């Protein structure tokens, strides 16, 4: 009993770790992680819609390049993609003199590019699956109404495909949040970067990583509940009727 109370005292007295200063690092990390994940998801989503339509095309020469893109980006670790883009841009001739350099020299943008390309590949496949699963009847009905291919895509196929893709896309958002933890390997001070800094400075793995794990857990649950809410609103018509 005595052991435990002295241990507890030591722990609190020796708590130089969670000062306002280190909490500041975690806060900055949270901001960086949120920006990185949010921006890459939005950009990835914008890319994925046309890519998914092309991927669903009957013409091989349209769908095949997209397939190769998604296959490569889904089949290799994000870490390698990040390394290639981060170290690779430097070797583009004359990049340091170009107007793009002030942007690319910061670790944030190569990371953003890598994350965007990665999530766009996964999202493309999710949408393709959803487009493929469109009920035949809906398409026939649209044709019978004399809708053009593009009008049918806009009015019939995409709206219902988006709804069907929602649960899988929710998983992708969580996956992206977790994957973003590798941003710290290219010097970004995201949440994990902040934890690594605190760990290296105070040699305190439990404090540093458990705290950041708790933050990630909260974020994960927030995303989870947000998508549950969306599903409830948007997929209400698919639920079995209850009397």
């Amino acid at each position: 009993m005595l052991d435990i109370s002295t241990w507890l005292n030591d722990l609190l007295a020796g708590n130089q770790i969670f000062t306002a200063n280190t909490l500041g690092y975690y806060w900055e990390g949270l901001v960086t992680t949120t920006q990185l994940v949010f921006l890459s998801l939005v950009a990835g989503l914008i890319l994925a819609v046309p890519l998914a339509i092309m991927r669903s095309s009957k013409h091989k020469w349209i769908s095949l390049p997209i397939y190769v893109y998604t296959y490569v980006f889904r089949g290799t670790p994000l870490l390698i993609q990040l390394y290639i883009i981060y170290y690779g841009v430097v070797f583009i001739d004359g990049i340091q003199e170009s107007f793009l350099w002030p942007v690319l020299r910061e670790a944030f943008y190569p990371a953003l590019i890598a994350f965007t390309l990665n999530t766009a590949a996964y999202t493309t496949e999710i949408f393709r699956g959803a487009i493929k699963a469109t009920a035949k009847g809906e398409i026939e009905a649209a044709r019978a109404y004399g809708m053009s291919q593009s009008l049918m895509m806009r009015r019939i196929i995409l709206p219902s495909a988006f709804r069907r893709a929602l649960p899988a896309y929710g998983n992708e958002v969580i996956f992206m949040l977790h994957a973003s933890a590798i941003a710290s390997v290219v010097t970004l001070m995201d949440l994990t970067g902040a934890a690594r800094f605190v760990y290296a400075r105070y040699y305190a793995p439990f404090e540093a990583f458990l705290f950041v794990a708790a933050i990630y857990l909260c974020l994960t649950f927030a995303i989870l509940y947000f998508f549950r809410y969306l599903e409830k609103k948007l997929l209400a018509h698919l639920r079995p009727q209850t009397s």
Partner: protein
Amino acid sequence: MKKMLSISLLGLAVAAASSAQARDYDNIRIGVDVPYEPMEYRTADGELTGFDIDLGNALCDRMGVTCEWVEQEWDGIIPGLMSRNYDAIMSSMTINDERRQQVLFSDPYITMPSAWFAPSDLGISEANAETLEGMTIGVQRGTLQDNYVTDNFSSVADISRYSTADDMVLDMEAQRLDIVFLDFPIGQSTLLNSEEAGYVVVGERISEPKEYFGDGFGIAFRQRDEALAEQFNQALADIQEDGTYDEIFARYFGEEDAE
């Protein structure tokens, strides 16, 4: 089925425990963070070399034991010692109070100042809060240079932290960093002597205040391994006396004073 599973799990546990062994000093494992030229690095054909490596091997020779070098990245190097991945750390580790709480140090075996390195066209002659304003500073994560820069300049400059010195040098050459803060000999061999010359030391070499820059490099041991530390201290004194130390020193630093 459940029984079968629990047996195989037990098998795993036994496999893990079978590597448990009593400590024995015939073979000493030393943790080192590579590369950190010229203190520890690999030659093109993969051979481990450097001042720490040669000195460590000489010490082990003197003690009549075999040494095995275990590579470990810097930010995990003290935990790795604690967890007995190796018995000592010999990796350009500066002796300071923060670390003394964690590990037991040998006598210092070399003293190295730190220094600022920048491209020669950066155009500042001294590094201080005014000249560094708005710049991106590179340091190795968890080093005393990191602590010093973080505490003194994080409000005026961006700090990029790297796992290895090599990463940092690469980003310096890619012009992602404006200036880096490093152990002097490391910057000297990786930046000043590199093929793509054009780097200079900015301002004086720095070894004050002691609060950050400590008392020279020491070999680190677990707190309880006092006997082992004593053995190393004895061997160090011996080779400093008989000239072996000077010979190794000259191999990496020429005739120049280590300060």
